[in-house]
């Protein structure tokens, strides 16, 4: 497998890195995470990202996209991860957008995917519940069929990424079977103002947008059912796997930046009359973080290529990438704090922001232990 970037990918990486550095300094985050700004991201900046073509990357050209793949997606998410940009790429593009692209009708794509790619509407995937942990088979939200082929949905979705302020939701609901069954899940489009829908902002340790979404008998018509009844699980498997790789790419960006900032500090900080970077104990620790970062980056690239090439090994490689990225990001962030010493523990210092994001990213779509288990299962154990 070729792990070097093509010329086009190198150009995209340069553009993305320059844009992120210039338009999204970490100081921006501090304003966005203030309680006065419940959205937690910038709509104007999101429009600019859409104008650059980033929101169309993973969509086919006849769906209005750029016809590129995960290899290009992870280039963009790595740039976003370096500056901890909280814009809704994962939620609106990789989760809800790709679910519509994969399962939606022409009419649904025209109505919902086009504005997502244009950056005009934000969509969110209402997937996880308090009881699902990382296992989508445990979905307990239920829908009964209504006359006319629609659904009446009742349940609660927790930590819906970018759910607060979203224009519409793709809701994963059980239409058959019981929590724990692999099948019987259906996807449905629900508009933000639908009667019976309540969306409350949740505050997590990384400060980003998340929402508690309650559905009390929310009715959707047959035209808002996404894909086939009871067959939503297959769509979710593919969509969440691709989003997991996109997130792992973001995590690589975060760990690279945490390491770079730590290296700057190790050179600058003087103790006992010398730069602390001269201490062998710290050199070795920094070198070990570097090795973990490079392994994670390679695992992410391999997973991205495997999905793009529809390889039989893609499930295992996605799990390898997420397990590596989860362990490496938390390790890099913990080491960054420890090597910064007391100053790293204060909320005023930026290095702590990486630890907080690392923890949320680690537990999104499954932590390292979950993915090591899934890797083993995919390999026949």
């Amino acid at each position, binding site marked *: 497998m070729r792990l070097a970037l093509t010329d086009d990918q190198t150009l995209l990486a340069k553009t993305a890195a320059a844009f992120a550095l210039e338009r999204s300094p970490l100081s921006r985050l501090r304003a966005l995470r203030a309680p006065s700004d419940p959205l937690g991201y910038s709509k104007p900046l999101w429009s600019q990202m859409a104008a650059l073509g980033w929101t169309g990357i993973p969509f086919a050209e006849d769906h209005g996209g750029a016809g590129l793949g995960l290899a290009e997606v992870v280039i963009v998410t790595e740039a976003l991860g370096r500056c901890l940009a909280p814009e809704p790429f994962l939620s609106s593009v990789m989760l809800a957008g790709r679910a519509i692209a994969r399962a939606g009708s022409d009419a649904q794509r025209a109505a919902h995917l086009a504005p997502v790619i244009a950056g005009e509407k934000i969509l969110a995937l209402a997937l*996880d519940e*308090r009881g699902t*942990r*990382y296992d989508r088979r445990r979905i307990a939200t239920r829908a009964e069929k209504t006359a006319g082929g629609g659904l009446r949905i009742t349940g609660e979705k*927790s*930590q819906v990424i970018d759910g607060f302020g979203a224009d519409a939701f793709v809701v994963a609901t059980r239409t058959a079977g019981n929590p724990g069954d692999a099948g019987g899940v259906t996807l449905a489009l629900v508009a933000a103002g639908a009667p019976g829908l309540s969306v*409350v*902002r*949740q*505050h*997590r*340790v*990384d*400060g980003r947008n998340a929402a*508690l979404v309650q559905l009390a008998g929310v009715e959707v018509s047959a035209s808002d059912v996404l894909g086939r009844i009871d067959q939503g699980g297959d769509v979710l498997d593919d969509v969440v796997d691709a989003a997991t790789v996109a997130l792992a790419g973001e995590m690589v960006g975060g760990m690279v930046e945490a390491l770079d900032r730590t290296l700057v500090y190790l050179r600058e900080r003087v103790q006992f009359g010398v730069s602390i970077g001269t201490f062998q*104990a*710290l050199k070795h620790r920094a070198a070990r973080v570097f090795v973990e970062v490079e392994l994670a980056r390679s695992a992410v690239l391999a997973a991205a290529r495997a999905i793009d090439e529809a390889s039989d090994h893609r499930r295992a490689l996605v799990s390898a990438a997420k397990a590596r990225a989860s362990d490496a990001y938390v390790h890099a962030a*913990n080491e960054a*704090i*420890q090597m910064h*010493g*007391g100053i*790293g*523990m204060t909320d005023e210092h930026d290095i702590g922001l990486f*630890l*907080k994001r690392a*923890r*949320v990213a680690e*537990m*999104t779509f499954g*932590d390292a*232990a979950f993915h090591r288990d899934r890797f083993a299962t995919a390999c026949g154990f």
Partner: protein
Amino acid sequence: MFKLYGTELNQRRQELMLAIRGPQALGWEGEGFSPDELQQTRDWLRSRGNTIEGGTSEIQLNVLAKQVLGLPD
């Protein structure tokens, strides 16, 4: 030795608690998290300081190496 081991033990304990609770240990305030879960997040963050405050683990290791094991500077 107690400072070195005790603080690292507490960090491992907090990491284990996070792994057990999963995403419910990510809350900072407000809806969707129990008071215990919100306290867990704070306890974990606080534990990262344990190996820094009052003499870092690196300083404790230096003391052990020099004064207990008698290794040279």
